[in-house]
């Protein structure tokens, strides 16, 4: 159901970004980029208190007329941003949460691979690292495509 999924590293550079090919991908990249500001604002606002209490799921970051952007931050400040089509009203918050959870799980699987250096792009071009991650993201995006 997602139209675009992005994984952004702690230093705010993208580790993984993938959009549905139909749309102009640059637009999604730009949306993700602008959403980073919102994410930062949220974590700084909540992060004053104990980091533990900070919710991983950030919720709706900002809506546009066509899309809604959701955010999720891990404890290691890796951000997941998901752009969802607004017309898809059936998506409840819980579903978004579960999608982020799946993303997080796949991401940790990638992390567990000792051959993956944290900070590398999550490549799935080769028969390797990130293939499972990519497949999982595809499964999230397929219904829209």
């Amino acid at each position, binding site marked *: 159901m997602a139209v675009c999924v992005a994984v952004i590293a702690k230093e705010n550079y993208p580790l993984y970004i993938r959009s549905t090919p139909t749309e102009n991908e640059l637009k999604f990249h730009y949306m993700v980029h602008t959403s980073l500001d919102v994410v930062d604002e949220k974590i700084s606002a909540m992060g004053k208190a104990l980091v533990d209490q900070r919710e991983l799921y950030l*919720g*709706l970051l900002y809506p546009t007329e066509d899309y809604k952007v959701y955010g999720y931050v891990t404890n290691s400040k890796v951000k997941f941003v998901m752009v969802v089509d607004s017309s898809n009203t059936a998506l*409840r*918050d*819980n579903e978004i949460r579960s999608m982020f959870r799946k993303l997080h*799980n796949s991401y*940790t*699987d990638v*992390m*567990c*691979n*000792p*051959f*993956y250096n944290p900070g590398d792009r999550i*490549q799935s071009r*080769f*028969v*390797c*690292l990130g*293939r*499972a991650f990519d497949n999982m993201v595809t499964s999230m995006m397929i219904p829209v495509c």
Partner: protein
Amino acid sequence: MEGLTLSDAEQKYYSDLFSYCDIESTKKVVVNGRVLELFRAAQLPNDVVLQIMELCGATRLGYFGRSQFYIALKLVAVAQSGFPLRVESINTVKDLPLPRFVASKNEQESRHAASYSSDSENQGSYSGVIPPPPGRGQVKKGSVTHDTVQPRTSADAQEPASPVVSPQQSPPTSPHTWRKHSRHPSGGNSERPLAGSGPFWFPFGEAQSGSSAGDAVWSGHSPPPPQENWVSFADTPPTSTLLTMHPASVQDQTTVRTVASATTAIEIRRQSSSYDDPWKITDEQRQYYVNQFKTIQPDLNGFIPGSAAKEFFTKSKLPILELSHIWELSDFDKDGALTLDEFCAAFHLVVARKNGYDLPEKLPESLMPKLIDLEDSADVGDQPGEVGYSGSPAEAPPSKSPSMPSLNQWPELNQSSEDTAIVHPVPIRMTPSKIHMQEMELKRTGSDHTNPTSPLLVKPSDLSEENKINSSVKFASGNTVADGYSSSDSFTSDPEQIGSNVTRQRSHSGTSPDNTAPPPPPPRPQPSHSRSSSLDMNRTFTVTTGQQQAGVVAHPPAVPPRPQPSQAPGPAVHRPVDADGLMTHTSTSPQQIPEQPNFADFSQFEVFAASNVNEEQDDEAEKHPEVLPVEKASDPAGSLRVAKTDSKTEEKTAASAPANVSKGTTPLAPPPKPVRRRLKSEDELRPEVDEHTQKTGVLAAVLASQPSIPRSIGKDKKAIQASIRRNKETNTVLARLNSELQQQLKDVLEERISLEVQLEQLRPFSHL
């Protein structure tokens, strides 16, 4: 019987047939049924068959040894060629065609016949070494034909001696058949797969010819020396083939039979042997991997951390991308560490990759970490121990058919292995908490979700260890509550083992009057529970058998949750108990009852049962008042009542309530787990503590009570049966309890969802 000279073609053919008939894998004697079948398939008249059997000495010996078998095959060939059957004829007839067997039954033999016949056009060189059939002295080895073969191999630029490494040293090479298949896409030809099947019938103990031939053909492939470099750190070059005999998959071959013509030379067929699983690890390979594992991690049940594994596999000089892919395939539980099985799978894949094989998309079944004990037969060993994986590698068409049949065989194997009425493995999604619990028990901390499609898996080594513990201790891991967990095969096989052990042990306990080893009910499929309980039981049991019960009590930490220390001591002391020392101990220990669900100390409950029954007339306790005074301390039902009464009394103590709750919700979790759950449950279930407390208290008590059954003296059959009855009652009670708890859980979840919805409605407004 005089010596038999076989041509190399015949040699191979016969050894293949021998292994086909050798379904019991004895390598010495073939099953008569199979042999007879084979001979019938040879389409010879019955008297001829009888004559052959007599001539080869089988009737004399009463069985078909390898030499007898070979002679018999030769005689079949003689008979089929029309020559008179005489003992001398086996050696005198020159250029005897290979015996033909009707394809309908033994397709592989026809395959072989075809393969051995028409291979002159096949490329590939023949390696110089023909391994002698194992153990049979009478049949002359291929050494006779070795000379003829030698010149051929020399053509191939492979040092004839090099690939032939002693079995102990070399990990067998990857399935060159597979690779060959990829190199010869024209393998649609029926002869090609036939041809390919030839070498793979060698029993692997000595399959050096295959390996050397394989090396010979891989001209384009990285020659041994670089491999040796890598393996030199590991000691030996991986040269021999990965393929192993797979008698079970023989039937899958569907190639058409072709007539065997006189063969001139044997060539190793690289063609994909579709019935063989190219990913199967041979014994020597496995041994090699195990040794490598030991160099990194001496404990075979331990784990290799990711960093160590990374270094190790980096030495193989494979590109990092491929190594990471291998890791993704082999780290089955995604925890960043490799167990022995995972390590073997990874190593195997590395070897395969180094030999030029493409990596599969998914882990082949034969490489999956096995949950059942590795002492299983070869057939079982092939099967993955898990549910939900169709293991056929995408890029290995040859392996598809073997994996399919093995996959098909798996479900039936699964059923056969779990005979119990309890549970069959059902893949469930693991919640993080449960996974965490499991992982913490097994390894170091910090694992995430397991694969959603994988069942509740435990590290095979740990599992097998605990299975052994379980069976040795014969304890029912007393988790009779089916809280939705499904166990893996290993767990379901526990009841069988335990059942069998129980019967055995009963006789034992009869002899030793003070043996407190009672037949426990079959364990419930609660992995964590059984694990923790089994560990405790193990301690308990070993102590018990060694000494008297007094020792037992001292050993495990004191028991379970609820019981009211205030009430216990007084009446407890007076309570007569089977285990004499127990009561005194138990009277003192109640005060120390930790939150830990240690099931060892059941006598606690008996004490309380006795004491509390008198004091508190719980509705349920009233149901079985007669049970308590009559039955021995091991009465779980009594303890059940006790626990219930306890739970009632302790409603006042909120501190213990969460403990109960935690026990109930996470039965028999190791210490860290209850702590976590307790916090959570406190938050969630505080309003419902009272109701929960009672139920979960009962639950935990009952659960804890299960292991104490061993405590009771099972010398009397009657007592045993009585305890069985009690356990059954307990089961029903617990099942009811479970359903009630499920209902409560549903209610709570609904509340939670409604709260979330409300929050969601409020949230957008706060953002904007």
